[in-house]
């Protein structure tokens, strides 16, 4: 565990960049899927990927080097200044639940669209004007 911590401290900038970079990459990949893909399921997947990116960003913002979970437990009574920020984590939990509900609803709408049109290609579905 100690070795891991040392490694972590040595490369902390790199890890920060990696975490934030991953989050932003996820958002960009998701946006690409939502805006340019033609298949409805792929669009829904894109939405989920964007959500994942935003959630990762939230958790990354609350993180501090060498931190612990924000819970007072035996052995951690004096760890208050090492605790990661609990607020973003609470927000992420809520956001995950909302994202889940939206994804489920989106998929059910996709199923209904597929039943009516026999295709999931968005270009062949446009019966309403955009």
């Amino acid at each position, binding site marked *: 565990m100690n070795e891991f911590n040392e490694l972590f401290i040595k490369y902390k900038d790199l890890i920060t960049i990696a975490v934030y970079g991953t989050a932003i990459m996820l958002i960009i990949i998701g946006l690409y899927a939502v805006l340019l893909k033609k298949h409805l399921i792929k669009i829904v997947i894109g939405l989920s990927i964007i959500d994942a990116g935003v959630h990762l960003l*939230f958790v990354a913002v609350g993180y501090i080097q060498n931190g612990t979970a924000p819970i007072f437990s035996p052995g951690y009574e004096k760890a208050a200044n090492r605790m990661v920020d609990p607020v973003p984590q609470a927000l992420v939990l809520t956001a995950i639940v909302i994202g889940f509900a939206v994804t489920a*609803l989106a998929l059910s*709408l996709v199923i209904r*669209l597929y039943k*009516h049109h026999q295709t999931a290609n968005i270009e062949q579905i*446009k*019966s*309403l*004007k*955009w």
Partner: protein
Amino acid sequence: MVITPVHYIVAPLLAAFAIPLLSKIYKDAARVVPGIVLFYNMIISFVLMRQVLKHGMINEIIAGWQPPWGINLVLTPFTGFLAAMVSVMGFIIWLYGFRFKRTLKGGVVKYYEILQMMMIAGSIGVIITGDLFNMFVFIEIVGITAYSLTAFYRDRNGAEAGFKYLLLGSLASVFLLLAILLIYTQTGTLNMAQIAERMPEVSSGIKITALIFFLIALGIEAEMFPLNGWTPDAYEQAPSPTSATFAAVVSIAGIYALVRVLFTLFDVSGVHQYLIVMGFITMLVAEIAAISQKNLKRMLAYSSIGQVGLVLIAFGIGSQLAVFGALFLMLNHAVIKSLLFMTGSYFIYNSGEKRLEGLNGMHKRLPYVSALFSLAAFAIIGFPPFSGFWSKFYILIAASDQKMIFLIIGILLVTIIELVYYLRLVGRIYFAKEEMQDIAHKPSVNALVAMSFLALFIILIGIYPDIITGYINQAAAALLDKTHYIQQILANK
């Protein structure tokens, strides 16, 4: 029992969970219980409004956590006024849609009433919450119920409109989350009063980035150009009481969220000019689009967007009088546009035709409903004896106080466009030749009561605007007095 703002949210949530159980015992529970809840909401909004005007702002602390840390519900004259308006409209729309299930098969109506009630509850939540993330959660509640209601009819267009709305709505929620994240990293808080207090210390680059994210996210919710592509489809495909709710409740909540963020949270200069410009473009594009519509509900939807544009202009002008006009217009928009949707849906129901041709000669088959529709049409254009006149009048006076001549000319020109297409509708009803069909679906008693009440309100406010202006004036003052808002909420820190 002490009545507090939290009842607004708790009662509908409890009912939403209880209705499926209750309907095992009493078959009509799904239709009756939402009405009781919405009626209760209406009563408490009157009680609380009195309390607010007498003793000042109510700041309710949830679960014993003081404001900067916990979630608080705030009822100022401003939010109290909007909450009262939304709950009254919610109840009237329920009354109107009470027999709505007649046109549907069996069990579906249960979900319809629950979703409708939750949409109204979520909108009230958006209005009364004092916490930024809590606002996001309520916006999502409104969003999810609105997507489901848009796709309520199981035809192909319903699903497509619902999916389109969902796509834009989820993008909005992503941008809203990013904006909240930026604000949180800079100020370390989610309480809106405390954010407003700490905002001057935030560097301007980040402030503007967050502002842009907010404008994208809430612009989608508030139907601002160019992010309102979902609006006409959603209004058209949703069941008619839901279209009325979109106009009277959801768009009000969207505008509120936008205004609260711009007026209280940010102190960036230039936002007001941006609101005026975007509001004007929104209004112009929407009204021009409305005039070429072939479908009644789509036309009304575009007209709704136009009204929202005018509201944004008025908020952009930003003086006390202009904000007063904006709030007055929001009230008028909610009342008049829902009356238009309610009466319009009876025309569609009777002719079986969503296109404008279905209106031809309707006054012989539905004389009373036609009269109400015409009254609402005249009111929304702004003819003098009706309430719509006063809101437009005050906005124009506010614009002339600021010497915005071009804006006044623009608003009047757009009003002419409005005049053209509404008079065309009324003309079709009264003067066009009809193909007589004798199967007339007479409106039910409850719908007649609901529509007559709204019509009465329009005339009454038109003749005696003084009964409502006092409240609106205080509401406008409460919105503009930011320091008082911050002090009151953080007082017991």
